[in-house]
């Protein structure tokens, strides 16, 4: 063991054959001739090992640095004497012309010269790279020592920098400052110019020259950002592009066709992307797109959108989805808000909306005086229907408009959120636009639309059709700001449908309510739902009352059957609840005694069940089925079942006690029934004036009813039907309100709103105790915005009133602050 350990450790010698190799100059001579051979592509006879060993030996002689320097000199000489000369020789005079050469054949000549030059340069660069790769490999040992011991950059890097300085940046002739690079730049830019104007160029060739610029750096440390491509070429390219696209933008605008502009711009965009991939460098893609965005699109898009006859308006009107898509994509590139386009779209929507509004008014126009109700019924019927038709047409038109823009939004605007909210706000704008002098009728129109459909429109439609119909309506509801107004109308119309049993399908009604609930919220539909509830309770009540009557009363008594609807007064529309004008206290009408007894019996029954409630009878809303016997003059007797309003029933029953041939005057009837004047007039009109339902005769025969008119029972009443329905003129059908009614509705509305506002104020103040005026205003506005847009003045008034009533107090003046008084 000891023997083994003591074995001599042989000291290594450089090379087994220590002969000629110990001399620097010999080594260098071998090496340098071989390196030249590499440059002249004559390397296959060279042994890598031999060259490597040469440089290794030199480094081991501690002459590495000298070798490094000599290599630099060798390479510089090669580049200067061979490569640079070859490259400059390939530059023909036509390449040195100014950049803007438009003459066609000169351009061709220049292109050919350029391609020759680029090809030579490309080859020079690729040779240089290949040879330097080989040389660096051979000198690897030197490189390792130089970079670790002497912190010198790799020889490869150094020699690449030499190429930059002694080829690219060398003057093309001794007497000029123009360098090879300058020629390269102008040539490449010229080629790109050619391609932009539709010529075909040799892209791979240019790409290879660009590779060269990407492989060369300004600094020896080779930071990414110091690539020649980025420091020199790219700025020049972008500048040239900027100029080109400025001109291009002007040129395209001059053609005056928005569609052409959009198409060219889109084409340019994809062209430049392609150019960055195929011809230049992907590093530039984002930057050149910026140039396009700024120079071509941003500067011009507003004008393009506005272009007379071809701009956005024209595209919208003609549903040019493709063009709209382009213009949208372009706008979206430069402006996340797409201001010019949204403005144009919004403007157009409002314009079209106004047209719809206007046509609705126009079609309702024949009724010159909305309060024509005082005129003859036959004349009056028509205009009112016209208005209703107009309302429904209005809704349909808006829905059509909406469908149009939805289509555009989906297919052209890529479902863009900004566009959607712009469209929505425009719809909402014109829908809530006041029409002429009057306020918006959209709430009423929309409610009428629902009314119409729920009464007739949905007959024979499938569930899904009904569903879409209702959904369409709901979308419009979304646009309506004063939802409370809509609620009021809907309630009114609904109550009529319910009480008069005019609804086609209760399912559809309920569906409608749940849709509204989804859209507007629980609070909104509460009262509507309560109405439905009243209806179901009333049904039960009626049947249990009938049961009660059968059990308790005298079975022989000729009895009047009663169907009753007990309505919770707060939930139902006021005009139904207080049809009687509230200001002059009027006694309720006098029922005939048969009816009166039934009424009393029911009251007894009901109040026995629900103690402490008060029933008030709304005769104006009821109907009655009565059997009438007509004694014909020929002695025959004709019976008809008449379906009439409660008032008409009361009137007709009066004639039971009137001997045949006798008459009652208006005043007499009035005195005996205490029916309010206007109801009495209307009922008498329908009984005595309406041509098909003249159960009474009137003297004199005229349309107007005067206090002195006499009424006879008309025994000669003729009808082909057994059952005759005698409608009351006006009031039973849901129609557009006339001016007076509207004023009335609005007045009620504003009272109700006042109450809502006060409630909101008190709610907020109770929670906050003290609050600055502006904050209070804000909170009130946000709380109520779901229902309606409160008037600021109204809020102020309400605050004042609350202060007067000592719910609130002023705590401070500056800023004005209120406190809650508990």
């Amino acid at each position: 063991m000891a023997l083994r350990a003591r074995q001599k450790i042989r000291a290594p010698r450089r090379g087994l054959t220590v002969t000629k190799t110990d001399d620097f100059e010999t080594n260098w001579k071998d090496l340098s001739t071989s390196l030249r051979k590499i440059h002249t592509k004559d390397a296959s006879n060279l042994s890598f090992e031999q060259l490597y060993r040469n440089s290794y030996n030199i480094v081991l002689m501690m002459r590495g640095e000298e070798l490094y320097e000599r290599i630099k000199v060798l390479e510089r000489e090669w580049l200067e004497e061979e490569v640079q000369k070859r490259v400059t020789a390939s530059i023909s005079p036509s390449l040195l012309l100014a950049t803007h050469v438009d003459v066609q054949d000169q351009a061709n000549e220049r292109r050919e010269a350029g391609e020759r030059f680029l090809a030579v340069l490309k080859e020079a660069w690729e040779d240089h790279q290949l040879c330097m790769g080989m040389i660096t490999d051979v000198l690897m040992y030197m490189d390792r020592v130089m970079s670790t011991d002497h912190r010198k950059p790799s020889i490869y890097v150094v020699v690449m920098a030499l190429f930059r300085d002694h080829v690219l940046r060398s003057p093309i002739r001794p007497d000029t400052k123009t360098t090879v690079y300058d020629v390269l730049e102008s040539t490449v830019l010229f080629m790109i110019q050619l391609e932009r104007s539709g010529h075909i160029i040799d892209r791979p060739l240019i790409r290879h020259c660009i590779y060269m610029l990407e492989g060369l750096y300004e600094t020896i440390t080779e930071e990414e950002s110091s690539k020649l491509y980025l420091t020199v070429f790219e700025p020049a390219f972008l500048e040239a592009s900027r100029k080109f696209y400025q001109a291009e933008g002007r040129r395209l605008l001059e053609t005056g066709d928005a569609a052409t502009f959009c198409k060219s711009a889109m084409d340019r965009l994809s062209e430049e992307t392609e150019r960055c991939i195929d011809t230049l460098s992907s590093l530039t893609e984002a930057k050149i797109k910026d140039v396009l965005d700024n120079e071509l699109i941003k500067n011009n898009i507003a004008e393009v959108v506005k272009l007379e006859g071809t701009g956005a308006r024209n595209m919208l009107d003609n549903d040019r989805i493709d063009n709209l898509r382009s213009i949208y994509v372009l706008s979206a590139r430069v402006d996340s808000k797409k201001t010019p386009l949204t403005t144009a779209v919004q403007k157009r929507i409002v314009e079209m909306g106004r047209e719809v509004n206007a046509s609705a008014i126009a079609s309702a126009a024949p009724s010159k005086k909305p309060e024509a109700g005082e005129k003859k019924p036959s004349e009056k019927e028509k205009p009112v229907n016209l208005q209703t038709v107009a309302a429904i047409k209005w809704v349909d038109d808006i829905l059509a408009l909406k469908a149009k823009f939805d289509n555009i939004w989906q297919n052209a605007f890529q479902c863009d959120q900004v566009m959607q909210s712009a469209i929505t706000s425009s719809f909402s704008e014109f829908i809530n636009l006041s029409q002429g002098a009057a306020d918006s009728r959209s709430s009423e129109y929309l409610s009428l639309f629902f009314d119409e459909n729920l009464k007739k429109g949905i007959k024979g439609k499938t569930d899904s059709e009904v569903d879409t119909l209702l959904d369409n309506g709901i979308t419009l509801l979304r646009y309506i700001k004063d939802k409370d107004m809509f609620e009021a109308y809907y309630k009114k119309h609904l109550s009529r449908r319910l009480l008069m049993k005019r609804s086609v399908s209760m399912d559809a009604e309920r569906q409608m309510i749940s849709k509204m609930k989804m859209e507007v919220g629980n609070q909104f539909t509460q009262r509507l739902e309560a109405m439905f509830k009243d209806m179901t309770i009333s049904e039960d009540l009626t049947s249990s009352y009938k049961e009660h009557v059968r059990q308790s009363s005298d079975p022989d008594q000729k009895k009047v059957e009663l169907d009753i609807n007990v309505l919770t007064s707060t939930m139902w529309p006021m005009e139904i609840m207080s049809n009687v004008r509230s200001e002059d206290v009027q006694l309720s009408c006098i029922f005939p005694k048969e009816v009166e007894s039934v009424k009393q019996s029911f009251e007894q029954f009901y109040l026995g069940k629900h103690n402490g409630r008060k029933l008030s009878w709304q005769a104006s809303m009821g109907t009655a089925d009565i059997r009438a016997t007509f004694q014909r003059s020929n002695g025959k007797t004709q019976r008809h079942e008449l379906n009439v309003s409660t008032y008409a029933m009361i009137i007709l029953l009066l004639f039971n006690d009137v001997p045949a041939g006798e008459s009652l005057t208006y005043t007499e009837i009035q005195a005996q029934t205490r029916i309010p004047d206007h109801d009495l007039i209307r009922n008498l009109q329908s009984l005595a004036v309406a041509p098909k339902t003249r159960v009474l005769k009137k003297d004199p025969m005229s349309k107007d009813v005067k206090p002195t008119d006499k009424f006879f029972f008309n025994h000669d009443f003729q009808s082909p039907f057994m059952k005759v329905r005698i409608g009351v003129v006006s009031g039973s059908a849901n129609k557009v309100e006339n001016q007076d009614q509207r004023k009335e509705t609005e007045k009620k509305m504003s009272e109700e709103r006042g109450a809502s506002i006060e409630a909101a104020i008190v709610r907020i103040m109770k929670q906050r105790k003290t609050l600055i005026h502006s904050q209070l205003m804000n909170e009130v506005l946000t709380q109520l915005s779901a229902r309606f847009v409160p008037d600021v003045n109204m809020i102020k008034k309400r605050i004042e009133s609350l202060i007067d009533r000592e719910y609130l107090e002023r705590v401070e003046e500056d800023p004005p602050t209120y406190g809650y008084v508990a």
Partner: protein
Amino acid sequence: MYQQFRAERRQTRNQIRGPHSALTDFLASNNISAAQIHQNHQRRLRDFERQSAAERQGSSPDDSDDDEFQHVGESAEDRKKRKRKEAVALAKIKQSKEFARHKARRTGGPDDADDEIAREMMHQRSQPLPGQLENCEICGKRFTVTPYSKAGPQGGLLCSKCSKALADDEKKPKANRRGARSGRRQNQSNLLDGLAHQGALSLAEMCTKKVADNINDIEEFGDLPSQLLHRLSQILCKRRVLTPRTLNLFLRPDLDSIDIYDAARLETHDFEKIFALMPNLSHVNIRFAGQLKDKVIEYMLDRNLQVKRLQLDAANLVSDAYWQQLFQKLGPQLETLKLSNLDFSLDDETIEVMCLYCTPLRRLKLKQCWKAGNRSLQAISGLTSLEHLSLDYVQEIEIEILLSTISKISPRLQTLSLEGFSNADDRLLGIIHDNCRALTKLRFSDNAVCTDRGFVNLFTGWANPPLENVDLSSTRDVDNTNPDGPKDATGLASRGLVALMNHSGSKLQKLNIASCRHVSHSAFEEIFSAGTTYPNLKELDVSFHTVVDDYVVGRIFQCCPKLQKLVAFACFNLRDAQVPAGVALIGGLKAQDSIVLQGNY
């Protein structure tokens, strides 16, 4: 002198009592002392000896030869014959390989122990062959010996039943221990050195180790290139075997550089020898140069060496006068000067002389030079060629002087390292931000004044290209009563780190943020969020970041594909991170865990 020192130290030690261990306390409380245990043990040994001697005398009073007491009753002739046979067998055994192995196992015995070993082996061999009958050592039953029969605790054979029982007792733990232990210590040691690379070492590295192993058998290094000598010097210094003898191997007249990382064993004349034998020296790097005296400097200067790069560490026997001479003479040629751990000389005046003469200096490092103060720092601002500067002052310096010096030289700096300038404030960072344009490495550590905002400002909109090496360790608030630090964080904290990574993440290779303790978990999550990569980061130190947990470390591994070394001492929330192959996770609780787990008791 050394001995004397040790003796003194021991004496002082006797007066100072170290803390008792829990075991000492327990034993003392139970009236047990080490001395008592020792006495008891000795007594038991004596008793046993006396007893066995008595037994021997009783059983075979006539036989004095211990070895032969079992062969009672054989004839003298037989005995002779047997002895002869035995001698032959012993001689044979002694020549065998197995013998050599046995011998190697018993280290340190004198030569005459050979016989003993051989005899022991012979007895082992003479155990019954398979097929013979034998009495079991434990239960005494007679059984047939098989090739698989086991030896008992005293060397006799066991019956199958007893050997099975024995095997059950022993086998498992033994096998396990051996399996688990192979190379574990070495692996852990490598891990702590940051070595976790895959595959074999390079041949050069392996040979270098082998050379170091056999350094005493090597007479010369031959033509070995200097970078290999450098590596050998490193490894020899690490093993502390760079002696005057081994130094000679490095002294080759053709070489121009010398690197000695540990010159503590060299004598004065050894240093002179370096300069005498290496006339071409341009690069001198000698650390722990305790015996490098004035006269060595004088000798070196007389030799007219072309030294360009000079690094001396702990050369405390060189006086200021000689330092000044050195600077005057070498000044015009010195490119690099690195001096460290000087507490005896190199005062302000000397450094002023240095700055006066060493104008071409490109690289300067002054670390732990006790006598250097404000004046020296001011003088450094005159070194207009500096590209690399590394300062670690012992004395408290005036912040204004630091600021003016840094602002003068920073525009050209490529590396800047400032350690222990505890009173530097955000203005310094502002100067770095405003002036530095070429930095690749920045170290600024041990500071509790600069704020997170300062760091954010430094790294935001900085015209300097991304840094490659950053060390901002121990920049944090140090108020033990308020461990979370003030609300506007002091030192590099969350926002500063985010700004740093935004600025330098793409190029960063080494990052040390140890003890920057105000960095939040969410900041780490942000920095190492999915999709981010730090393509060049190789080394990262996040020690003393208690927010770093398994999740963050997992993210770090995902975001840093080139990571080789992650230092995470005292990251207490780091419990069970999955470490990818090729990455060394240093510190952390896992290192200890694995030692315990693999011990497998």
